[in-house]
C-alpha cells in the first residue's frame, strides 16, 4: 500500500499542504509515500524536508502522486480525478450531501473515497475538523480590526469590550473562549491590565427577536456571526440594522455562508450586505472598493461596519491547521491502510473503521439514486 500526497493549488492563496511529519509517520508504519514536488513550499518546506522524513518517501510529479493506492489531499481535486486508478482510495473534504455530482463522478471512475467532513463517531461528533481555528483565527482578525477602529481600545478607563456572538453551536462555543482572550493569547497577556471582554451569547430565539437584537447591537463593539440557521434564506441581521452598531464596531463573520440567490430556496448571508472574504483579503473597511465586488447584484449593502470574513479561517495559520488535521488523521489512515483501502471497510468494525465506513462511498450509495438525494442531504443538514 502506498500514499500519494499531491499539491492542492485550487486557490493560490491557500498555502495548506500536508506536513513532512505526516509523511514521516505514515512511512514509519511501513508504507511508501509519494510526495508531489513542491508540496509545502508555500509554508516554507522544501522537497528535501519531505525526503528527510523517511527513506520510504519519494518526490514525484503530479501524475505519479495521484497514481497511488491512497491519495490524501485536503480539498477536493475535482479536475484531477481521472489521474487516479480505479479501485484506489481518495481521502479529501468532499462534501457529498451538497456535491452530489462529485460523488457520481467518483463512482463512475471506480474510485473509492472517504470524505473527511463526514467522518463522525458514534455520537455524531466529527473526527476531522478544526472549528477551534475557525473561531480563534476569526476572532484574532476581528480584534485586530477593532484595535484600529475603536479609539478607546487601549485606554484603562474604558468599559469592558462588548462582544455579541450569534449562535451557540460548536463554532460559537469556541468563539466564546477566543473572544474572552481577544482572539489571541499573546494579545490577552498584553492587555491583562485593561478592563477585559464581556461576551454575550444569543441563541436562536433571541436572534429572532428584532426588538431585543437591535437593542443588543447598540451596545456591541464586536458582532460575531457563528449561527447555524434553520432557514438560510433569511438573514438574521438586515442590512439597515447594521446602523444600530456603534461607528467603531466590527463584524466578524465565522459562518461564511455563501450567497446562492439562484438556488431554491436561496441562501443569503446571516448578516445582510457584508462581503465574502478570502485568504487573500479578509479585512474590509467600509470604503473598500472590493466590498461590492463580492456581493451579488441587488443585495443591500449601504450600511457598513468594518468586517472580517474568510471562506477558510483555518487557512490563516496553515501550519497549525495542518498539524491539527494530521493529528486527527493519523489513526484513521492507519486503519485505512490496515483494511487496504476504503472498499473493504466494514460498517461493524472497530471505532475508526465504523467512522471511516460512514464517510466512504460505500455508505452513501443512496446518492447514486436521484430520488433519494434530497432526503439524504436534508438529513445530513439536520444532523449537522
Amino acid at each position, binding site marked *: 500500500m502506498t500514499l500519494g500526497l499531491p499539491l492542492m493549488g485550487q486557490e493560490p492563496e491557500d498555502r495548506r499542504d500536508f506536513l513532512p511529519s505526516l509523511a514521516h509517520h505514515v512511512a514509519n508504519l511501513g508504507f511508501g509515500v509519494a510526495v508531489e514536488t513542491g508540496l509545502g513550499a508555500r509554508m516554507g518546506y522544501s522537497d528535501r524536508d519531505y525526503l528527510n522524513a523517511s527513506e520510504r518517501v519519494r518526490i514525484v510529479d503530479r501524475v505519479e502522486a495521484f497514481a497511488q493506492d491512497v491519495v490524501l489531499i485536503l480539498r477536493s481535486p475535482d479536475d484531477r480525478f481521472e489521474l487516479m486508478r480505479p479501485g484506489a482510495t481518495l481521502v479529501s473534504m468532499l462534501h457529498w450531501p451538497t456535491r452530489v455530482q462529485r460523488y457520481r463522478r467518483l463512482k463512475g471512475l471506480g474510485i473509492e473515497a472517504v470524505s473527511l467532513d463526514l467522518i463522525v463517531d*458514534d*455520537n455524531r461528533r466529527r473526527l476531522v475538523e478544526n472549528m477551534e481555528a475557525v473561531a480563534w483565527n476569526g476572532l484574532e482578525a476581528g480584534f485586530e480590526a477593532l484595535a484600529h477602529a475603536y479609539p478607546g481600545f487601549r485606554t484603562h478607563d474604558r468599559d469592558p469590550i462588548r462582544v455579541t456572538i450569534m449562535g451557540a453551536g460548536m463554532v460559537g462555543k469556541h468563539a466564546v473562549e477566543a473572544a*474572552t482572550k481577544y482572539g489571541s493569547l499573546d494579545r490577552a497577556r498584553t492587555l491583562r491590565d485593561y478592563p*477585559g471582554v464581556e461576551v*454575550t*451569547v444569543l441563541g436562536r430565539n433571541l436572534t429572532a427577536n428584532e426588538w431585543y437584537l437591535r437593542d443588543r447591537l447598540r451596545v456591541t463593539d464586536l458582532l460575531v456571526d457563528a449561527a447555524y440557521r434553520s432557514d438560510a434564506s433569511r438573514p438574521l441581521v438586515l442590512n439597515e440594522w447594521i446602523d444600530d452598531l456603534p461607528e467603531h464596531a466590527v463584524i466578524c463573520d465565522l459562518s461564511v455562508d455563501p450567497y446562492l440567490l439562484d438556488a431554491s430556496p436561496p441562501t443569503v448571508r446571516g448578516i445582510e450586505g457584508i462581503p465574502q472574504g478570502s485568504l487573500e483579503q479578509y479585512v474590509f473597511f467600509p470604503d473598500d472598493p472590493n466590498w461590492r465586488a463580492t456581493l451579488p447584484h441587488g443585495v443591500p449593502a449601504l450600511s457598513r461596519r468594518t468586517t472580517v470574513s474568510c471562506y477558510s479561517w483555518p487557512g490563516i495559520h496553515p501550519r497549525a491547521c495542518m498539524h491539527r488535521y494530521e493529528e486527527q488523521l493519523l489513526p484513521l489512515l492507519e486503519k485505512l491502510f490496515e483494511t487496504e483501502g476504503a472498499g473493504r471497510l466494514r460498517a461493524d468494525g472497530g471505532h475508526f473503521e465504523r467512522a471511516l465506513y460512514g464517510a466512504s462511498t460505500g455508505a452513501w450509495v443512496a446518492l447514486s439514486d436521484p430520488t433519494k438525494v434530497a432526503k439524504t442531504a436534508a438529513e445530513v443538514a439536520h444532523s449537522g
Partner: protein
Amino acid sequence: MHAASLLWKPSVVRVGLPRLHREAGEKRDFLPSFVAALDAAGSEEIIVEKGYGSGMGIDESSYTAASSRLAWGDLDDCLTQDAVMQVRCLDEDHFEQLGAGSILLSMLHYTTRPERVRRLAELDIRAISMDGLIDDGGRRLVENLAAVAGNGVEAAFVELAKTHPAFDDPGRPPIRVTVLGSGAVGSHAVRAASRYGDQQLRDALVAKGVKGVEVVVVDYDLTSHEAYMQSVLSATDLLVDATQRLDSTVHVIPNRWLAGMPGHAVVLDLSADPYDFSVTPAIVKGIEGLPQGSLDQFVFYPDDPAYEELDPRISTEHRRVALSCYSWPGRKPRECMEVYGAQLEPFLEVLLNKPPDVWDSASPSLYERALARAELSRWLGVGSA
C-alpha cells in the same frame, strides 16, 4: 499487505471490570458495548463483577451477549487480572490485590493525589490515568465536560423554573445567565444555558412565545472588578461557576457579593473544587458559601442543614438556591458511560496488545503516544521506555 508494525503479540489477555463500590447515587459501570470492544480488541477473558450495570438497569444477559469470553466473578476475581478498568479510582485499600505489573485504567488525578501515586508506584502497578490521556496539544481525549455542564445547567434550570416569578411568562425579559470562566466547561455551559439545559423545555417556551436566554461570559480579567461584577450579579438569574482558578485559595465571588443578586437567583457550581482547611492556605470554592454536593444531594435550599456543617471560616450569610456535585456526569450514568466507552475504544488495541514497557511517546499512533504519557512510571519520569 499489512505493515509488520501493525501486528502485535497479545500481552493483556484478561481484563477485570469491578463495580464502583461508592455512594448510592454512583451507578456508573462500563456498558455491554465496551465489553464487546474489549473482546474485539483481543481480550482473552473479561471478568465482570456480579451485579455489574444493575444500577443503570442493565441485566446480566446484556453483558453475556456482548462477549463469549465474559465470565462473572466477585470483586477479588476482578482485581487479580492483567488489567483492571474502572471509571473512578479503586478504593486504595484494594491496591495490594492488584498484581505487580498489572494495568489499572481509571480516573486517577495524579497531580492532586500524591499519596495515591506513591502507593501505585510502590506496588509497581502500571497505572494509566484516564484524565491524563491527552493529545499533543494537551486536550483530554477521555472527558465528558459536555455532561458536566449539561447536567449541571439542566438541574439549575429546573430550580430556576420554581424560583423565578415569571419563568414561562411571554412578557418577561430574557433569562440572564452569567458564566464565570470561558474554558472548556464554561464553553459547554454557554451552549447548554442558551437552550435552558433541556431541549424540550426550550421548545415548550419557544412555542409559548417566551423570550430566550441571554448568556454573559466573563473571565478572570473581569471577575476581579468588584463594581463591574456587582452590577452584573444584580441582573443575573443564574450564576454559573465554571472557573479554572490558578489560585484555588482565593474566592472568585466572595459571599457578600451574592447579597445583590435577585432573591429568585440560582447559583450553580460546576467547578467541583472542594474546601480543604487541612492545608495552609486553605483551598476554597470559587463562590464562597456553597456546600459541596454529591450524586446523593446536589440541590441546597437556603435553609439546608448542609450550610451549618461548613467550616465556620466560610461565610454563608448570603444564600440562594445552590447546586453543587463533585460528579455531574454521574447524574446520567448510561449516557456518561457511552461517551467514556467510545472515547476509550480506540486505546484498547494498543492497551491490550502491546506491553506498556514499549509504549512509545513518539509513536505514529496518537493513542499510543497518549497512553505512554498517561502511564504512571513515565509520568513520574522513571519509566523504562
